[in-house]
């Protein structure tokens, strides 16, 4: 395997879950998903709850089997045991053994990750420091807060120094400080050259750390590409606030409008950037006044929302169900 080949490759991967007493109903959790994650990048899987993000990650981690298609990590199938030495994983809402202390749990993870016995203590100390848990290392995990559990779970994923990190909703349910700490850990791993696949429905987190993203809705891939590419592909929009004119008159103007919203005697209108001049001219000609003009910065959130809107009813939680 050369260094330019994708570390993760999904080719037309689908997953159906069978439901009901007779297992005759099917939920299509994932449909024909194809994507690559290249070495050294931070890749974000974005989508609402039930979009198929966790299913994708579970297929990669060999926790569930794909119904069809092919998934590989480092060129190997997810079931390859030796390959798993090279990756670290943090599941959604991680549940470490709560009867262990943080230090004991990391030692167990190091043993399972095939860290040589004489190195385990040093590695555990190193990881406890990295996740800022030195003081709580000797406390039982059942006494930990959610943020501390998340940090110890990230610690167990790092203790064997993986080349690839797979994180399922690592910032979900954390306070702003906890989220920042997790984001900083991801960024520090990226600086070390670790490849990271990161799923979230918190768009600001994805925007802060990811180079490329894929948006899943209802088990289908609806957008994929670099963050900058996805944002520049969008038509720039400006927000114009006008008064002295009714919404009906504005909507009757020949300029195509994105949105018209009445606001305290004024109208807030979103219009394509290249149509702004024509729109302002038309408003003045109809006796209206322009109070404010502001170009809108298109965010990943806008792109996400427009992808959801395009998906329509397919964007339902938990994938499509068929008999």
């Amino acid at each position, binding site marked *: 395997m050369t260094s330019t080949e994708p570390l993760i490759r999904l080719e037309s991967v689908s997953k159906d879950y069978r439901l009901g007493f007779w297992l005759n109903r099917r939920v299509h959790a994932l449909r024909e998903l194809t994507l690559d994650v290249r070495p050294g990048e931070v890749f974000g899987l974005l989508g609402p709850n039930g979009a198929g993000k966790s299913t994708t990650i579970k297929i990669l981690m060999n*926790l569930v089997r794909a119904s069809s298609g092919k998934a590989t990590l480092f060129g190997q199938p997810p079931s390859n045991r030796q390959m*798993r030495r090279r990756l670290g994983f943090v599941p959604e809402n991680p549940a470490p053994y709560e*009867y262990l202390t943080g230090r004991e749990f990391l030692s167990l993870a190091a043993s399972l990750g*095939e860290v040589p016995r004489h190195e385990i203590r040093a590695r555990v100390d190193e990881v406890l420091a990295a996740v800022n848990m030195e003081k709580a290392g000797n406390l039982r995990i059942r006494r930990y807060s959610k943020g501390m559990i998340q940090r110890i779970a990230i610690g167990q994923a790092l203790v064997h120094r993986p080349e690839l990190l797979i994180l399922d909703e690592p910032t979900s349910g954390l306070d702003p400080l906890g989220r920042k700490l997790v984001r900083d850990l991801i960024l520090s791993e990226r600086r070390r050259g670790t490849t990271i696949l990161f799923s979230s429905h918190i768009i600001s987190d994805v925007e802060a750390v990811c180079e490329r993203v894929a948006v899943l809705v209802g088990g289908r891939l609806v957008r994929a590409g670099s963050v900058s590419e996805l944002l520049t592909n969008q038509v720039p929009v400006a927000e114009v606030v006008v008064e002295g004119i009714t919404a009906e008159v504005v909507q009757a103007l020949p300029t195509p409008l994105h949105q018209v919203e009445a606001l305290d005697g004024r109208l807030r209108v979103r219009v394509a950037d290249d149509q702004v001049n024509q729109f302002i001219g038309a408003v003045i000609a109809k006796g209206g006044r322009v109070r404010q003009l502001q170009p809108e910065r298109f965010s990943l959130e806008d792109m996400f929302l427009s992808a959801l809107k395009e998906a329509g009813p397919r964007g339902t939680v938990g994938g499509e169900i068929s008999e």
Partner: protein
Amino acid sequence: MNAFLATAWNGFREARRNRVTVVVGAFALVTLLLATLVTQVTVVTFRRVMVDTGLGLMSLILVFLSIFLSSGLLAREIERRTIFLVVTKPISRSMFLWARFAGNLLTLLVLQAVMTAIFVAEMSLFRFPLGPAVWAALGMLVVELFVVTTIGFFCSSFLGQTVSAVVTVGLYFAGHLSGDLYRFGQKAGGVASTVGRAIYFALPNLDRLNFRSLATYDVVPTLDVALKSAVSGLAYGVALLVVASLIFERRDFK
């Protein structure tokens, strides 16, 4: 091997920290009270009653503890999702299952060893040293615990916690009755004979591992009988664990 030992040791540590060791205290207390009571009511049969109740109590506590520990173990790991952090490491699911089984068995063996030490001490106190018949019964209890634990792991590999516990308890009792079912089938003849034989071979024959009544009357089983019983129990348990591994390797952890 390091990963196997670490997982097995973790299983033992889990049981210890969840304070299953209190059963030893309960055993010591009950046998002590019983000895006090028995000395008041009997002189001639004291040894027999003490061996009978001591072995019976030890078997009852350990068998139900083994059902409690094993029948929900894998299901609990899946439901609580603790398994996600383990089987995604470079260990196979089968290895995880066998290592957890080893940890469970280690817990039971340690508890049985401590209970046996208490029992020996108590019997020595009344100047009744334990003979080979009692040691044979204690040895066969180890095999019985092995088989019951494998049944628990087998059920837990594909059933939820509660159902697994109920089925394991059911199989335990059925295992003690399988010999009777076989004999009943043979007497009835026809289809009942075939069904009886099928059930007999499908279920573990736990009655064959029960040497406690022999120990009560100080009857030493022949080596041939003891070996055959132990080998059949161990073979049944290993076969069940292999099937459990195959199921566990293939199932989805949603």
